[in-house]
């Protein structure tokens, strides 16, 4: 049996030229990760729960106004500000996957990590999550449901990574590029999201990077995110 125990650098590329804001990734994530839906009142109170959210920015004024979409989810920082502040090591770094892990049953709900995250991608369960019967029949058994008082966030669909690794180990072969698709990237109609291992030189993300349009969110903070954004373009005619 092969041991796919080499370390990985899981990386996401978000092509803003292709993101249409359609929310397919948002709903796919809710389905895959058993993320509860916040009620109207909770959304009004600023407690909406989505592991991936599409931010929308306006630029310019009518009639030359533009809307720009920016999907934001856990940036899986190499120097994650959420990690050193957790008193119980619930937020910690996986050496093998090179992503930031949240251990739900260790979390005591201090919310220090959420406070320290500059991307505001950590979500706190203020209330017990609720699903009216039989909606809970849909739950993904690979992912635990988080109780009240627990922080949660995007995991790059770690359960999918693990499943593919187990299959690859059993079949005595390395993990192939593209075999692992987080639910968001899998759903995205325009393929604005591309996922892969940056340590694998043959992977699509490695081939795409460095990219002339690339940037990272709040790069100056030195958090070293594993998410690369590609700036959107604009085609002009008659100039």
């Amino acid at each position: 049996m092969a041991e796919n125990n080499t370390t990985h650098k899981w990386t996401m590329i978000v092509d803003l030229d292709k993101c249409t804001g359609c929310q397919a990734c948002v709903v796919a994530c809710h389905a895959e990760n058993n993320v509860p839906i916040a009620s109207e009142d909770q959304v009004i109170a600023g407690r909406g729960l989505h592991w991936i959210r599409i931010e929308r920015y306006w630029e310019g004024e009518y009639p030359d106004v533009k809307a720009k979409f920016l999907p934001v989810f856990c940036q899986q920082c190499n120097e994650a500000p959420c990690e050193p502040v957790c008193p119980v090591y619930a937020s910690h770094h996986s050496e093998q996957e090179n992503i930031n892990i949240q251990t739900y049953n260790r979390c005591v709900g201090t919310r220090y990590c959420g406070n320290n995250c500059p991307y505001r991608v950590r979500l706190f369960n203020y209330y017990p999550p609720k699903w009216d019967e039989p909606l809970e029949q849909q739950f993904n058994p690979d992912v635990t449901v988080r109780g009240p008082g627990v922080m949660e966030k995007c995991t790059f669909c770690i359960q999918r990574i693990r499943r593919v690794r187990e299959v690859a180990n059993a079949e005595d072969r390395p993990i192939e590029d593209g075999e692992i698709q987080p639910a968001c990237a899998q759903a995205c109609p325009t393929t604005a999201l591309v996922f892969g291992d940056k340590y694998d030189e043959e992977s699509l993300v490695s081939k795409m990077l460095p990219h002339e349009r690339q940037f990272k969110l709040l790069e100056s903070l030195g958090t070293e995110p594993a998410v690369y954004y590609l700036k959107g373009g604009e085609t002009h005619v008659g100039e």
Partner: protein
Amino acid sequence: MPNVTRRNFLKVGAAGTAAAVLAGCSQEGERWVTLEPYVTAPEEQLAGIPNWYASTCRQCPAGCGIIVKIMNGRATKIEGNPEHPANRGKLCARGQAGLQLLYNPDRVTGAVQQSERGERKYKPIHWNEAINTLYERVKTAGPAVAVWTGSSTSAHLSDLFTRFTAAIEAPPPIRYDLYSGLNGYAVLAAANQSLFERAVLPAYDLSHADAIFSFGADFLGTWLSSTSYGVEFGNFRSQPYGKRGFLAQFEPKMSITGAKADRWIPVRPGAEALVAQALVKIIAEEGLGSPERVERAKALAGEVNIEDAAAACEMSPEELVVLAKAFAAADHPLAIPGSSVTGQPNALAATAAIQALNVIAGTTGQPGGMTLTPDLPVADLKIPPVSTFADAQQLIERMKAGEIKVLLVHGANPAYDLPPETGIIDALNAVEDVFSFNPMVDETAAHATFILPDRVYLEGWGYEVVQPGFQGLPMISSQQPVVPPLYDIHSTGDVLLAAVKGIPKAAEALPWADEVEFIKEMITQLPEGALGGEDNEVRWARYLQHGGWWPETMPAEAAPQTTAEPIEVSATTYQGDEEEFPYFLHLYLPVLLSDGSGANAPWLQGSPDPLTTISWQSWVEINPVTAKKLDLDNGTLVKIESPYGEVEVPVFIFPAIRPDTIALPLGQGHSDYGRYARKRGSHPLKLIGVQTDESGNNLAWANVRVKISKTDEKKALARLESSIPVEEGDHLPF
């Protein structure tokens, strides 16, 4: 009963080989499942190891292929079918949310009867009694039976209903709902009939286009087939010709397609065709593009004032010339007529005027051009024709006049899908017996005498003749049960086949034992196609396993042929006096709730609308200048009045809308349809009358004027974005 196991019921696993499947396919009545305890678990059922089954999405009429992940008998995730030529492995938010239709807590769990219409008190009845009652009432009614289906009703059921109505000499079923109405299916088909002599929906090959002119078509949101167009748009932006491509979007209010456009042009509602005609005329007069294009433009150019057209776009005539040049000089230009065009009084001519740009481009049927959905090579597998609004109206009048004794409703919700002005509720109540086959108590079922809930698509059989046919392909998507039915529920196909057994003529026309026998008979007529297969059994197995049937290459008929003739478009007219009703009303289908059929899923209700970031609510979008003039703030409740009705909604100040236009999303304002939908927001169809376009194909819903009056109340908006505005002059780094 033959020895039938759970495996046979589920038919084909993604991992199953054709040979293994065949063993279970040889007996009649094989669809029935015998429930066995898991001590003798089916061999492919391993704890923790999912099975995947291919089927068809029914959340809109596009017919995308899906694969459903089954973990120990539960459906846990829906994904796009990577082999399907339409959606190519991708799936939109609505498609993902199909699981919340299957596991919706407010499903009707058996046949019920209602004695007082609209009282919403239901008495459970036994299915035998339900089927018997259906038989008796239909038999007594004779030809005074009508069938109302929706654009998402399975094509096999449409076929069965059509055979049924023909046999009892009743008019053919109506296939009309809000989605097909607002998106102008009937107009698009009629315009293609007049231009290309084929009454089918067009498909646009964005993948290989380099200039796209979309006239109000929100193809990335809710127009015809948003997932497939999403895939196409991704390809378009992948720079197939080494350049990004140019997308111009003409629409009064920015949609998500407008947000992705290189040029968003806030055209006056109703002036889209005028602009298209001006582009044609400029190409002809200025001799732009290749000589062939100029020739065709000359043949098609109608009378139009270019300055008027430019003014309607809030631009100078010179800028319009620049755009015309961009179209004419592109290698693969495309023009797309959208939903707001098809909701105008001059819908047919306006749509044809926009399609004329594709004729001028000369790329129809080629890469980067327009194709027309080809027919399948089997006469029995027809694209179900979508009814016109005039047809629907005619049926309503007959219902009101008491000419209809029995109405069967499947896959549509006429009480919600039509403006109240049509008198649809009175019409429903005037019918002696209304049988609703919808899986939930919707507004129509609330006025039904019987609800015989159909299985939802994840637990029932069917197929979809896919239109629009992307890549010029005729396609059929297979639908099979991926989980056993949750409740004691009989599929509508079987109920119909059983009920008509006692009506000799209908029994003769519908001789099948059950719907699966019918489906199999239809499907096995298909030739080999891309999936191959030596005989019927293998082809049937592959059809189920791979999610449908399609050929490898585009047939010739997908390439449209036309003889160019000048197109005259009359100026549009508006409903409502300009003085009294100063604003244009722009209705649209929002990305998540769409035509309101998504309103019962918490995932769709609770996810933010992309441009406003509002969830769970209704709102009205108003330009900041207009809002300032009327002293309106975010959340101010306003009363919107049209000549036909009024709604109250909170304001959302929206920078990307014309100051003379207000926009309202549809989808909310349900009085029924489950706990997540009920009593939430407003239903803007109240603002629409019953005027049709000149051809009678569509409701004229896009030319209504409204007035706004402020109330003293405010409503907190449930929006995801912060209410703290971005500093003025801030430049975004992306």
